[in-house]
C-alpha cells in the first residue's frame, strides 16, 4: 500500500526485536506489538506537533488485529502509522507492524487524546497543531 495513490501516508520506523519481547510460546508477546506501535505513533505525533506531543498524547482506545507471529529470528520489524482523522481533542491513526519478509503481523486503529498534563483533561488542538497534523493526512483520509 505504500506510495499507492489515495493510500495511507505512512510514517515508518524500524524497531529491533529484543530477547525480552518473546514469551514462553517463542513468539513476540501480543503486548509488545503495542510497544512497537507506540514507537511510530510517537514519531507521528512529534512530526506533527513537536516534542511536546510526547507528554500530551494519551491512548484512549485501540483495536488490534493480530495477523501473524513475529519470532526472534525476524530480528526487526517495521512499524508504520498513518493519520486517519483529526478531531477536536483527539486523532485517529492506523498502525501496522510488518515483518522483514513483508508479512503484515498486526494492524490497529487507535484514538489518541491530547491532554493537559496538569489537569489530565483533554484539550483542543491549537490552530498551529491542527495545521501540523493536516500535513500528515493521507489523500484517502477523512
Amino acid at each position: 500500500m505504500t506510495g499507492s495513490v489515495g493510500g495511507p501516508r505512512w510514517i515508518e520506523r524500524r524497531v529491533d526485536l529484543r530477547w525480552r519481547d518473546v514469551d514462553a510460546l517463542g513468539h513476540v508477546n501480543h503486548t509488545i506489538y503495542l510497544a512497537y506501535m507506540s514507537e511510530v505513533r510517537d514519531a507521528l505525533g512529534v512530526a506533527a506537533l513537536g516534542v511536546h506531543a510526547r507528554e500530551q498524547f494519551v491512548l484512549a482506545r485501540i483495536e488490534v488485529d493480530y495477523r501473524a507471529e513475529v519470532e526472534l529470528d525476524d530480528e526487526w520489524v517495521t512499524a508504520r502509522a498513518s493519520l486517519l482523522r483529526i478531531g477536536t481533542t483527539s486523532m485517529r491513526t492506523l498502525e501496522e507492524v510488518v515483518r522483514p519478509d513483508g508479512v503484515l503481523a498486526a494492524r490497529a486503529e487507535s484514538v489518541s487524546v491530547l491532554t493537559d498534563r496538569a489537569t489530565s483533561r483533554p484539550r483542543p488542538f491549537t490552530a498551529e497543531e491542527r495545521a501540523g497534523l493536516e500535513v500528515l493526512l493521507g489523500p484517502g483520509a477523512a
Partner: protein
Amino acid sequence: MSGRPERPVRPGRRLQVRWNDADALGHVNNAVYLSYLEAARGDLIRAALGDGVWWDCVLARIEIDFLREIPISVPEVTVRASVLRIGTSSLRTRDEVLLPDGTVAARAEAVLVVRNRDTGKARPLTADERAALERYLAVEDEPSPSV
C-alpha cells in the same frame, strides 16, 4: 448480550502494579494494560478449560477502551474476565482492569482462537468445553466488585 441468564459476579483477582509498569508520564503504560487483561483471561480459561487449553489459546483481536489512567502510586489493581460469546473455534471475552476504588480503568473485548497444538491450526471447541465456558458467560451491567 441481553437475554443471558443471571450469573454470579466473580470478584476478579488483584495484581501488583510494578514500578517498571510506568512510562515517562508516571502512569501505567498502555501496553502493560494488555498484560493485566491477559492475566484475567488466563484465570478465566484455566478455570473453565484447564491450563493445557490456555496454552493453546491465541489472541486474534482485542479492542480496548482506556478509561482511566493508573498512576504508578497505585499499589494494585483488580482484573476480571468473562465470556461474551462462544464461537466454533473461538471465544469472545470481556476483560476489565479496576482501580482500588472500583473504577474501571480499562475495558476490553478480546477474541481468542483455540489451536490444535500439533498442527497450529484452529480447532473446534468440544461440547464439554462449550458447556464449561457457558458457566462463565458475562452478566449484563456487571457491578464493580467490592475488594
